[in-house]
């Protein structure tokens, strides 16, 4: 055996890449869970094609999973990776440019036969022609070694091919000094009733580990110490799971049944999957015949006294538009969760974007104000869903909860909240018949009473036609309509009294304020931190509430010489900020279906600061 040395790293980014049938998402998730339990801070970026099983070996069939972890605070999945695990030639071709100079490539040599090379568009084998000289190249015939590990078991070659990802996982566990227990336990649970499959996968995993330990190819392994996170109990969580749990927590706190009406759509379907597991919490999930039935069934459930929610992505919101207007008019609580993806139309179903903000703000007929809450990180999706539900219930109004594909599928460690200390969002139904009018509003919130069917003496009719103030009877009078439009707007504006003031991360005034919303938080944070370390006068402000804005937003904006608004769209928040606060903000826009790299934001900041007189 060769002498093996161990080095310490503060942080590292690994990218697993292979065919969409190679199980790279599973490999990445397993590595992530193990890493989370070891106490590293982390952030992940799954990046997979829209096709379920794209033709093998092709460039567009490449599926990737990037994890950035460390002993320091981690805000992004990493701009570039330090290590690339490439299961075939196409995976190398697609991902090699995201590898840092001098980074490591671990390839499955079996994935570089003539056919693979041709499909990947390599005129000659890059492993042989020295073109990868800038990197550390580790060549392993993963397919063959996997087959060897399984040779005495009676197992099909198809299965052998499918389990080779566990070999790669085993090697990476050895290299980054991670225990295999979490994955072993997972395999035991997952394949408990298929002992031969479990046994085979376990063997391959361990074979990968043993290979890395014995072979002379690898002579360095790395330690990444636990991060110094705030004390408490942690778990790893994806954005979609966090949204689901946020809604469940809100319903429980409000003592209401949760009703989800939804139609499957990438990347939001996992919320439907997650919630449909919790029947024992009384959660009712309804896979409707379409997006419209998804939201309208939720409105019906809210009318009956449930917390109605609908989950979707942009194209689904387009279909729900008319019903959102109905919910504005009938003033019932409702949350619409939009896990945004690349658009327009079907667009980029599996890629991320934030181009639905204006749709959420303005995408309805008539004056139809809807509050908007946005999540900043995967774990923050829990708080965003909870907050959206709170506003919906308190103000009797439909609320948008905005996340995106990157947040929904990405994950990070989450300091598990104490359920008892979550805010009290209890609500009540109107019961007294005396003095009841369907549209007689609460003086503070302007919410109308929630009077649900089944209550004697409160029989009343609601609907999408304009209401007479107070009585709620159908009314077409000019002045009444104007009054009602204004009341609905004022109700929304009063929410500003009930949300936290915006806070600046960094100095409260200076040369540059970077204003963001949604899933760009981590990338902006990393860029701003580096600027601050360079001594630059740069601060960050990230918006949770986009409608209404926090009351102090204008005040803060005016304290900075320049405002930079990075967005994964062609400039949507910036339009609203400019028109509302008349600030000469500068945009940084990217629409590639991918999150920002923090370096892109840092470069833009440097550019702005340089150009400053």
């Amino acid at each position, binding site marked *: 055996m060769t002498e093996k040395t161990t080095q310490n790293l503060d942080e590292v980014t690994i990218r697993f890449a292979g065919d969409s049938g190679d199980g790279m998402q599973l490999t990445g998730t397993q590595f992530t869970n193990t890493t989370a339990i070891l106490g590293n801070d982390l952030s992940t970026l799954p990046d997979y094609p829209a096709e379920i099983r794209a033709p093998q070996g092709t460039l567009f069939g490449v599926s990737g999973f990037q994890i950035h972890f460390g002993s320091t605070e981690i805000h992004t999945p990493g701009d570039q990776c330090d290590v690339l695990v490439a299961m075939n030639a196409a995976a190398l071709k697609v991902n090699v440019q995201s590898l840092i100079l001098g980074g490591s490539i671990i390839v499955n040599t079996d994935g570089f036969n003539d056919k693979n090379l041709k499909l990947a568009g390599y005129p000659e084998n890059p492993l042989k022609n020295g073109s990868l000289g800038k990197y550390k190249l580790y060549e392993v015939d993963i397919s063959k070694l996997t087959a060897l590990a399984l040779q005495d078991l009676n197992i099909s070659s198809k299965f052998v091919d499918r389990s080779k990802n566990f070999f790669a996982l085993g090697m990476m566990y050895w290299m980054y000094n991670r225990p295999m227990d979490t994955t072993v336990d997972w395999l035991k649970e997952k394949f408990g009733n298929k002992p031969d499959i479990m046994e085979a996968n376990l063997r391959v995993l361990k074979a990968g580990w043993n290979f890395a330990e014995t072979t002379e190819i690898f002579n360095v392994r790395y330690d990444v110490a636990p991060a110094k996170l705030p004390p408490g109990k*942690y778990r790893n969580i994806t954005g979609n799971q966090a949204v689901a749990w946020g809604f469940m927590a809100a319903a429980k706190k409000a003592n209401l*049944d949760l009703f989800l009406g939804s139609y499957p759509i990438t990347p939001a379907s996992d919320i439907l999957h997650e919630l449909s597991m919790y029947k*024992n919490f009384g959660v009712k999930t309804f896979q409707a015949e379409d997006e419209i039935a998804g939201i*309208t069934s939720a409105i*019906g459930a809210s009318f009956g006294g449930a917390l109605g929610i609908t989950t979707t992505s942009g194209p689904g919101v387009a279909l729900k538009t008319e019903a959102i207007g*109905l919910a504005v008019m009938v003033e019932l609580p409702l949350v619409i969760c939009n896990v945004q993806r690349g658009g327009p139309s079907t667009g980029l179903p599996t890629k991320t974007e934030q181009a639905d903000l204006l749709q959420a703000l303005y995408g309805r007929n008539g004056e139809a104000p809807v509050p908007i809450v946005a999540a900043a990180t995967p774990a923050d999706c829990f708080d965003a869903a909870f907050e959206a539900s709170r506003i919906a219930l308190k103000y009797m109004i439909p609320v948008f909860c905005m996340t995106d594909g990157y947040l929904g599928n990405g994950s990070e460690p989450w300091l598990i909240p104490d359920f008892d200390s979550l805010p009290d969002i209890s609500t009540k139904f109107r019961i007294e018949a005396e003095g009841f009018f369907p549209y007689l509003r609460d003086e503070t919130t302007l919410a109308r009473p929630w009077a649900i069917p089944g209550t*004697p003496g409160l029989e009343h009719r609601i609907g999408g036609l304009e209401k007479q103030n107070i009585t709620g009877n159908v009314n077409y009078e000019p002045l009444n309509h104007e009054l009602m439009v204004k009341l609905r707007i004022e109700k929304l504006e009063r929410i500003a009294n009930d949300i936290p003031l915006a806070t600046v991360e960094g100095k409260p005034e200076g040369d540059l304020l970077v204003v963001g919303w949604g899933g760009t938080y981590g990338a902006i944070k990393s860029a701003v931190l580096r600027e601050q370390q360079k001594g630059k006068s740069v601060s960050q402000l990230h918006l949770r509430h986009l409608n209404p804005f926090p009351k102090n937003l204008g005040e803060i904006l005016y304290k900075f010489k320049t405002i930079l608004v990075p967005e994964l769209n062609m400039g949507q928040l910036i339009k609203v900020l400019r028109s509302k606060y008349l600030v000469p903000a500068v945009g940084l826009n990217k629409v590639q279906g991918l999150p920002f790299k923090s370096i892109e934001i840092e470069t833009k900041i440097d550019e702005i600061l340089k150009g400053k007189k």
Partner: protein
Amino acid sequence: MSTLVEEMLKQTPPPSGVKPSAKDFQSDQDVRWCPGCGDYSILAQTQRIMPDLGVPKHQTVFVSGIGCSSRFPYYMNTYGFHSIHGRATAIASGLKMARPDLSVWIVTGDGDGLSIGGNHMIHLLRRNLDVNVLLFNNQIYGLTKGQYSPTSEAGKVTKSSPYGSLDYPFNPAALALGSSATFVARTLDRDPKHMQATIKRAAEHKGTSFVEIYQNCNVFNDGAFFQFTEKDTKDDSVVFIEHGKPLVFGKEKDKGIRLNGFSPEVVSLKDGKYSINDLLVHNEKDTTLSFILADMTYKSHLPRPVGIFLAIDRPVYESEMTRQIAFAREKRGEGDMKKLLNSGDTWAVQ
């Protein structure tokens, strides 16, 4: 812990045991249909039978879409929801799932329920939630002032079809049967007794009841059904189908329907060739027969079938949902949010 809804239901015992009257189901709103509109009769019959159903008005909800017909909930002194075009079925589905304790009614039109809302309608029917659908079929778009609808006859001349409509019409009863409905009926605005009896049966049915009501729009499609409703013609043009009874019709009750293979044909009971024993006997539990009867609808050589085509039992959607929840609670225990948050792989940071 009981939910807020359960607490509300406990705190509010139903009002005194005095049986309500039809008047109790009338709201204080002025009814605004055109004078002479068939909708008036449907409203009156519905209000008349409501007290007999034994469901108090505060536990009754009428949900509608958009159209003349969909104004209906405003005139009922129950809970009501006049929603958006075509979606009443979906709203009612969510309401019924959330609140199986309520008696939920859907009022819709031929445009609302079969055109813009056709998708929700077929899915409601196959799911079989325990709700009642009253589809006011006037074979026209009334509210938008007279365009052809999905039940208008081919060739119909309207404002939007000056050269005649090219669409072949839906047969609502057949559509409902094809969607695996468990209760399918047809009745007439001008036959109050039949309508009352039909709606009552619909209310009693466990599962989705689909009732197509021929309704005269005297402004934009006057007389569309007069052949089936007016004295001179109705007896020879309509066959009332009743469970267990042979299909006899005609002013003199001198005609009947007999099956020739799978095809219904009209036979005379007068010429001595056929007797009542040769006639088709209706069985509302027979799904195959229901298709044969519904298919008579647009055949000019056959009388129009009116009555209950099918009434069968199938598990009710919201009951199954309740059962799954109970099963999950029994198997996994009542959900505990604290436990869930702390479940799975967790670790502590000191």
